[in-house]
């Protein structure tokens, strides 16, 4: 599978599980996608660990360090998996993995070179010494515990935006 095909498969599978994937071709598109996604957020948490996270511009009055009360979290996934449309976050580099879980809106950034084709491709890279916490996130939080009626956004975010760049 070529890189382009892997990216396309990831985006198609992420869309199937009710995530909102956006493919940004350049800096301008990336910034616009980010601004559009975060337009309605009152407070935004961004850990600022990776280069992409550091490049995220958030108005000072919206930025918060408290992810528990934030209305949105913007962070970069360690990896993504095309087979399932999953994002991978891990506790490496001091990342609070739960930050993407508590706010109602999660905006995940994915570097296209970090997209693995299959689950096996990803898990074989971490099998020898996995970080303390690896979380695969596939679509928004959901339940069907009442009469199997699908309800989005139970404990985790009700909205998941994925920006591939």
């Amino acid at each position, binding site marked *: 599978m070529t890189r382009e095909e892997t990216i396309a498969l990831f985006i198609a599978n992420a869309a199937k599980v009710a995530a909102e994937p956006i493919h940004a071709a350049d800096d301008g598109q990336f910034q616009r996608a980010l601004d559009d996604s975060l337009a309605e957020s009152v407070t935004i948490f961004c850990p600022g660990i990776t280069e992409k996270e550091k490049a995220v511009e958030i108005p000072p009055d919206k930025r918060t360090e408290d992810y528990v009360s934030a209305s949105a979290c913007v962070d970069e996934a360690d990896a993504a998996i095309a087979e399932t449309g999953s994002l991978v976050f891990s506790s490496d580099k001091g990342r609070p993995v*739960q930050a993407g*879980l508590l706010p109602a809106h999660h905006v995940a950034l994915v570097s296209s070179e970090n997209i693995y084709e299959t689950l096996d491709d990803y898990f074989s890279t971490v099998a*020898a010494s996995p970080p303390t916490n690896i*979380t695969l996130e596939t679509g928004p939080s*959901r339940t069907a515990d009442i009469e199997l009626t699908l309800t989005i956004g139970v404990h985790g975010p009700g909205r998941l935006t994925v920006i591939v760049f």
Partner: protein
Amino acid sequence: MSDPTAGIPFRANAVKALQDGTLRHAMRNATETFAIKRSEAVAAVPLEEWREEASAMRLHVLDNLSDYVDRFEKKAVKAGANVHRAADSQAAREIIASILRDRSIGKVVKSKSMVSEEIHLNNYLQEQGVTVVETDLGEYIIQIAGEGPSHIIVPAIHKDRSQVGRLFAEKLGCDYSDDPEILTGVAKKVLRGEFLSAKAGISGANFAVAGSGSIAIFTNEGNGRMCTTLPSLHIVILSIEKMVPSLADLPKFIRLLPRSATGQTITSYLSVITGPRASGAATGAKEMHVVLLDNGRTEILSGEYREMFKCIRCGACLNACPVYRMVGGHAYGSTYPGPMGIVLTALLEGMERARNLLDATTLCGACGDVCPVKVPLPKLLRRLRESRVEKGLTPRFEQTAMTGFGNAAKSPLIFHLGQNASRVFWPAMKRLGLYQTLGRMPRPASKTFRERVS
């Protein structure tokens, strides 16, 4: 718990369930939906190949289980977790209670775990003064209703939206609504507060990874992630057979478990946790304990029913079972319902207690056909029925009738006489107030098969 030697009154339970229209409707809706979703999810994948591989891997693990458990323990300890081995339910309950007692923790949030149901953990902790808050929406619903789960994946499958609405209005003091979205919102708000204030989280594990000492938890709601990352103490309870050799083997099961359970390609969340929070890290409980439960498994694994422990608890056999579909999980009166539940109950709690559950199967084989790891459920159920006869635990009437039939079938003369007699007397007996039992049975044919073909 009730008297362990008294059989579960399955027949009485089933009659009650069959008369409950709301339950029948809820069960039909749920099991049919799940069965259809599963069929759709496996239609485009090489299912047989995956089942073979997964089955072989599960067997390999069971063949070498004590090695894998030792390896898991060593790796988990190296990663900083405390590992405890519990021979039985009481030992497991007490290990967990004492961890909480030593730290003066009075409240825990809990992510759904069937093993915790198996050891009746919640009751025990509550007796010790610990408040247990179930956080999976379905578990939360049945917890405040004071009931047990009726399905291993969707515990409140037996309740409809208006019942949940009335329950929430009564117990939580909110306005009545029968909108699942509003009800989910109510539970989310209550439970968010619990997550953020709890000092300890208890979870089960879908798999334990021997090669790295990790545990894997699948959830859709995100409650598993909350229970394992927000409180400073995380206790995992899991049964020993859930080992997989390496993280590289996990994808095999990621592909099969959600597809078989809910028809999803993967659940919304999958957490793989290896030890407590590392120094300088910002994720994870500061202290992690893993309780490995045996509860008779090592002994059962040396016998003829060992393949039962290939089971990965997906619930597909429940949804496929014509008996489960009609009566729901509570009629089984056991922790685990449905075909896998009958076998597990017989193995874990004994034949005396499980003997009546063996009537809760038609031996149609649907459970074996859908099992993602090829547990030979029909074979195990049939073998357990034989064992019930060998132990003399079938009803006296059945024993006498079968012995009588056996003798009659040996003699062509008696057999023929019996056939003719039944043709004369059966219709008369059906009219004689025996309608309840006989009325459901077919009339004997006016001509026997032999008479028709000869």
